[in-house]
């Protein structure tokens, strides 16, 4: 049976399949479906220092092979997370990476600061797709200088994994990825959602109350694969591929293009077991093809 373990920095994951932030709640909610310690990692719903109530409804709209959402970062806040979710996550023995964000650099810092006092976290994933209030609402992840400074700041606060999650809504991903590396990130995860919109023709209204939303699902897979491949060609850092992954084949394609791990996003809505099943099916693929270790897949594209 193939060795499914992968490493990022010093951390060893049981397999390369994680659950993407915002698609797996705080992780523990899925324990009633399966043993969540059996997947590579749980990336929690984005955590801010204070609770956030998010955007008004409607927040979801289905598109061709995709899903638009404008949740607006609703979350219970880091304090409630530590009080209500972390004890259960520790008990479940889950590999947990906290997805964190703030409306300014200080916001990120305060969340991580609080989480550093909590046992049982493998690391942090910095969501850089959210609006930087001090920079007029443009997202953090579009400016290399900000990405580097923010990453370095968090890096200096923790020995845990620091993963920088990038937005695909940029002209050139390379300077941003380089900035994450320069700031001391252990890995880059990509992609977050594509900025999109839908119109309700009957009502002549935007389908989402927030007008714009993030596009995820199979529709975006080609864009996500391209981003992973671009970064892999230029930046020497472990990558976590995200975007439209539905099955083991999709996940392996991301690994072939350069990813060390993957995250399953909206597919969790279609099937709450998908992370577990995809890890299992990947192992079967490797066994069928007599590939001894999943780590061999990373960057194995012949071009």
């Amino acid at each position, binding site marked *: 049976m193939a060795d499914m373990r992968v490493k990022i920095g010093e951390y060893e994951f049981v397999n390369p399949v994680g659950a993407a932030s*915002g698609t797996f709640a705080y992780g523990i909610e899925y324990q009633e479906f399966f043993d969540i310690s059996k997947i590579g990692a749980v990336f929690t719903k984005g955590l801010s220092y204070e609770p956030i109530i998010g955007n008004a*409804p409607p927040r979801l709209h289905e598109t061709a*092979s995709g899903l638009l959402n404008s949740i607006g970062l609703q979350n219970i806040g880091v304090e409630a997370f530590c009080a209500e979710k972390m004890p259960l996550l520790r008990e479940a023995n889950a590999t947990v990476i906290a997805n964190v964000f703030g409306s300014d650099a200080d916001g990120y810092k305060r969340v991580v600061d609080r989480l550093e006092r909590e046992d049982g976290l493998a690391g942090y994933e910095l969501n850089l797709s959210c609006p930087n209030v001090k920079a007029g609402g443009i997202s953090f992840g579009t400016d290399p200088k900000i990405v580097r400074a923010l990453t370095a700041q968090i890096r200096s606060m923790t020995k845990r994994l620091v993963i920088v999650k990038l937005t695909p809504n940029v002209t050139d991903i390379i300077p941003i990825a380089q900035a994450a590396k320069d700031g001391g990130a252990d890995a880059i995860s990509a992609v977050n959602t594509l900025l999109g919109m839908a119109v309700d023709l009957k009502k002549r209204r935007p389908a989402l109350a927030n007008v714009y939303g993030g596009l995820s699902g199979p529709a975006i897979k080609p864009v996500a694969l391209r981003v992973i491949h671009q970064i892999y060609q230029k930046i020497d850092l472990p990558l976590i591929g995200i975007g439209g992954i539905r099955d083991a084949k999709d996940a392996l394609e991301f690994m072939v293009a350069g990813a060390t791990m993957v995250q399953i996003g909206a597919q969790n*809505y279609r099937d709450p077991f998908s992370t577990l099943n995809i890890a299992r099916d990947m192992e079967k693929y490797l066994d069928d093809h007599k590939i001894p270790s999943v780590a061999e897949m990373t960057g194995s594209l012949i071009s």
Partner: protein
Amino acid sequence: MKKVIAKVVSRRLFDGGYLRLQFESDEIAHAAKPGQFVNILTNPSLKPYLRRPISIEDVDNDKKTVSLLIKVVGPGTQSLESAQVGDQLDILGPLGNGFDMDSLAPNTLLVAGGIGVAPFLYLSRTVAGGSKEIFLHLYAGGASKADLPSWDDFHGLTATRKAATEDGSFGKKGLVTDVLKNDLGKFDPKQTTIFCCGPTPMMKAVFDIAIGCGIPCFVSLETTMGCGIGSCLGCVAQIKDQDDAIDHLRVCKDGPVFDASRLTWEGMR
């Protein structure tokens, strides 16, 4: 809540684009409470992309099968329409809190618009089979007679039943809200509760009537769902607390039934 692969055991088409599907799942049947729903992967391919939430219309006496009453409106419900007896469906359920049975008053009015009548069948059967002395009064509205496909199934389960159709083809001609308004004088507000399920404008109208009379009103909401299990935060309804602070609660997990007085109705379509 479970994920089951359930076999379709019966299928019946009604005029007007309605469909009743019965599937086998003792797990869901045993756990089901009135007002809960299931979330169905209607099509393993991508059209539609998401699961579709459908109320539990009824559970058989042996608690082996669950039936659903479905109005065919788009790709998801069309996929369900093409399901045949013997086919397997990928179903999550039972989901949500359902109706709060502690809120049942001696007179409980079930006000339904169109397909919104679905969950009231199991509710009525449960109450009828229960020990508390509760009089159920069904008010069911629809555009036409065909929009009341389950009317006959309520026979014997409710104390009274009234129907209203917009075209007058069955029951009173007009809106069910008008029939309700006319009747409300008969009920002692302190002994009465309204449970309502239907299109948003109709539920709002019922709520307005209810507060006018000081009658508690619970509505079963319908929003677009991502996961159906409380994870995505996509299905929220906006509520306000006592000091008018706003929050967003998940229709799938914290609902689908809400005390209507808590709702701002923002973004309910």
